């Protein structure tokens, strides 16, 4: 496949990767991948989770060594270069989660890997660095102080700090790995403006994203990976979202059913006047059996904290949570025995035991089924684990594989699947498809729809507007810890949710 032919012009490549292959254990993550990058392009890489996108850019940026193949950057061979050498030659990788130092200030974060050059003076010029950093931040439209500790910044601002650290060096290639996962729309716009500006000034960009509408908006060319292989390289102007999905998945994805939006009248969970200082203020709502209640709002509106407070994880100062079948819920223990399950946003820290096997993670919530008198029954555990793995189509080499080694989508499936056997009546789910690929996403959506049909009450927090609108029967919108509006039926639209979330409309007058 000739990657240049599509462009119909002569292009000078800054980066040429030839037949890259990489194995983790016996599993091939990359198979014979060719990847070329021209200086003036914003090249998106799309693919399902586990398709090898992150591995590819980790190899390019020197974080992970390649097993077979060659990498040429600006005409010099970089196949086995050390990460520092690669970074000093102007390559920067911005991760899904910003890799910063929370205890250090913005300025210190930006300067920490600065190399003193020319040997003129060994002393680092903090004043000069501060001025340069301030200027770069101003260029990116950031208003926070260079002296504030990074842990005090929002995720979006932290990403900007990460970006500025990259810009301090002479940048030639910027790789952004799923940068928009936890950003609000206006923050995404700011990020895209920055990326375009950099690209215009001669920085080649590799962009990894799950939200295809964003990929189509920002990129000029798109490489589609599937199972570690390049299946297509397309000019963005000559492709569509549908085509990309077909290429990525290799099968047709069932569109989420929006038809049967009937839920019963029976209230499953009633929350009244819930308060958690600083995060949740006077929140009341009900969820009915078989209903998916969406919670919309901007990042930081207190949505995750609301779920945590309902589940009993976060201290509450006032209010009541009552399950109609099991009575009042105050503690996590009561919540679990009332058949409430929480699938948190941060899988890595709260949802899973990363260093344990998939099997163990699946069994941990089901020990009541697989043990008798405190003694584990390993046969039964294996049986349940395998059943869940099959039902959720988790991609793995064996059930004893560590969860840490799974891709984001598959981790999320494990995180959900472990509740499946527990006859959960009320599911609290936070960002069900954050960092999840298209295929897994649709499977998760199907699971939520089917579960609701079977009578489960679902409370779902999502920043993915499409997901929120397509899945929810009803949406409540939060802002600054309060519910600012409720939408149902025909009132539900992207615009109405956004208007409420950003405070442009008041309750009940969203449209």
């Amino acid at each position, binding site marked *: 496949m000739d990657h240049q032919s599509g462009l119909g012009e002569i292009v000078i490549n800054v980066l040429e990767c030839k037949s890259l292959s990489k194995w983790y254990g016996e599993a091939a993550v990359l198979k014979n991948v060719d990847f070329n990058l021209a200086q003036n392009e914003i090249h998106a890489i799309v693919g399902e989770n586990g398709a090898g996108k992150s591995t590819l850019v980790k190899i390019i940026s020197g*974080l992970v060594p390649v097993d077979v193949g060659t990498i040429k950057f600006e005409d010099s061979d970089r196949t086995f270069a050390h*990460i*520092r050498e690669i*970074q*000093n030659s102007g390559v920067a*990788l911005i*991760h899904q989660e910003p*890799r*910063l*130092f*929370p*205890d*250090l200030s913005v300025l*210190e*974060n930006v*300067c*920490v*890997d*600065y190399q*003193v050059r020319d040997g003129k003076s060994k002393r*680092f010029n*903090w004043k000069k660095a501060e001025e340069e950093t301030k200027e770069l931040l101003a260029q990116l439209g950031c*208003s*926070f*102080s260079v*002296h*504030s*500790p990074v842990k*005090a910044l*929002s995720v979006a601002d932290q990403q900007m700090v990460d970006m500025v*650290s990259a810009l301090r060096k002479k940048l030639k290639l910027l790789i952004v790995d799923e940068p928009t996962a936890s950003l609000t729309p206006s923050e995404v716009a700011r990020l895209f403006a920055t990326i375009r500006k950099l690209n215009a000034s001669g920085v080649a960009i590799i962009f990894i994203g799950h939200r295809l509408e964003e990929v189509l908006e920002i990129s000029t060319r798109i490489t589609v990976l599937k199972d570690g292989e390049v299946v297509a390289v397309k000019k963005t102007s000559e492709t569509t979202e549908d085509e990309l999905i077909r290429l990525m998945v290799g099968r047709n994805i069932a569109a989420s059913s929006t038809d049967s939006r009937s839920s019963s009248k029976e209230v499953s969970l009633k929350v009244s006047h819930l308060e958690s*200082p*600083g*995060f949740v203020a006077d929140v009341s709502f009900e969820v009915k059996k078989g209903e998916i209640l969406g919670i919309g709002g901007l990042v*930081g509106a207190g949505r995750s904290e609301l779920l945590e407070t309902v589940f009993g994880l976060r201290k509450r100062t006032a209010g009541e949570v009552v399950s109609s079948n099991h009575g009042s819920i105050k503690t996590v223990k009561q919540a679990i025995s009332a058949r409430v399950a929480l699938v948190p946003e941060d899988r890595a820290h709260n949802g899973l035991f990363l260093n344990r096997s998939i099997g163990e993670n699946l069994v941990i919530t089901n020990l009541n089924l697989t043990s008798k008198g405190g003694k584990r029954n390993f046969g039964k555990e294996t049986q349940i684990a395998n059943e869940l793995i099959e039902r959720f189509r988790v991609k793995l080499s064996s059930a004893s594989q560590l969860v840490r080694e799974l891709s984001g989508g598959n981790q999320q499936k494990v995180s959900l699947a472990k509740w499946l056997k527990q006859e959960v009546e009320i599911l609290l789910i936070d960002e069900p498809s954050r960092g999840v690929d298209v295929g897994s996403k649709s499977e998760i959506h199907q699971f939520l729809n089917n579960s609701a049909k079977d009578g489960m009450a679902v409370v779902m927090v999502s920043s993915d507007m499409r997901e929120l609108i397509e899945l929810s029967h009803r949406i409540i919108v939060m802002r*600054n810890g309060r519910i600012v509006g409720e939408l149902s039926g025909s009132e539900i639209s992207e615009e109405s949710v956004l208007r409420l979330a950003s405070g442009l409309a008041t309750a009940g007058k969203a449209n």
Partner: protein
Amino acid sequence: MAVQLNSKITYIFKKREFGIFLFILVLLAVFGSIEPRFFRSDNLSAILSSVGILMVVGAGQTLVIVTRNIDLSVGSTLGMSAMVMGMVARENPDFPIVGLILVAMLVGGICGLINGYLVSYGMIPSIIATLGTLAIFRGAIFLVSDNVQIDPEDVPKDIISLATTSPIGIPWLLIFAFLSIILVWYISSQTLLGKRIYAVGSNPEGAVSRGLSFNKITILVFVFVGVLAGLGGVLYTARYATINPADVARGLEFDVISAVVIGGTNIFGGSGTALGTALGCVLIGILSNGLTVVGVSPFWKACATGFLILAAVAIDNLVRKRQEQNFLLAIRNQRVTK
């Protein structure tokens, strides 16, 4: 708005050191009123000498703890350095004093290098690695010295006078202590290297992905604390004149780590200041001397230090929690006003 936030934080951080300072004043008042002899000049200079030794080693330990590590072997390292230096002096009475100091620091540096390699390239958690070398170095002191102690007459007068004489009115011992603290202050707040040390402790994975040499920084801080423990060995010799293989600086690691933790260095890495450690050392020194002077039994003395550590960390946690909450509130308000 951001500026306000910022000054509020520095205020809270300063408050922590101010708190230790106040507690020191309270201790002075209590001990002084129970036992007036506490304020006699010979007692005060005894306190200062032990505080000085703590400070020299504590300054190094601060940077080690900042990188999420801990060095339990500092007492044995100090003992080893003192013993080797003492033996060199005994065999060569004319050995120049600067040479002796360098010998002690070299021995300490080698001990630190061993720790650093075990922790970085050996990938042994520092608490295990240095627990091992704590015993190994202690054993080595016996082997090297043949279990013969260094007597006061074997120690050069110039060394002993480090604890008493001075060029500017305060003894050399304290000058070394202050210099160590100032050095750590300078490294941590003024240099890029310092920022890298804090970065490694703040987010080790991030440090690697930003191209910082994690192993080099780890080795460096262990060598640094080793060299300072070597210097501590010189000061220990100056103060006690006798180096007994069995009890030279035995248990020093407890006082040093207590002082660093009480001084506010986060045991989970990433934060901590030289000033905090200095104050922590003063606090430990006064407490341990004062309890003896007022006649508290050694058993209660150990308990008191233990309680102090727990109280310091507990209060710290409370403050941090509240601080974080206020922080989030402030940020949220900021968003609203935007």
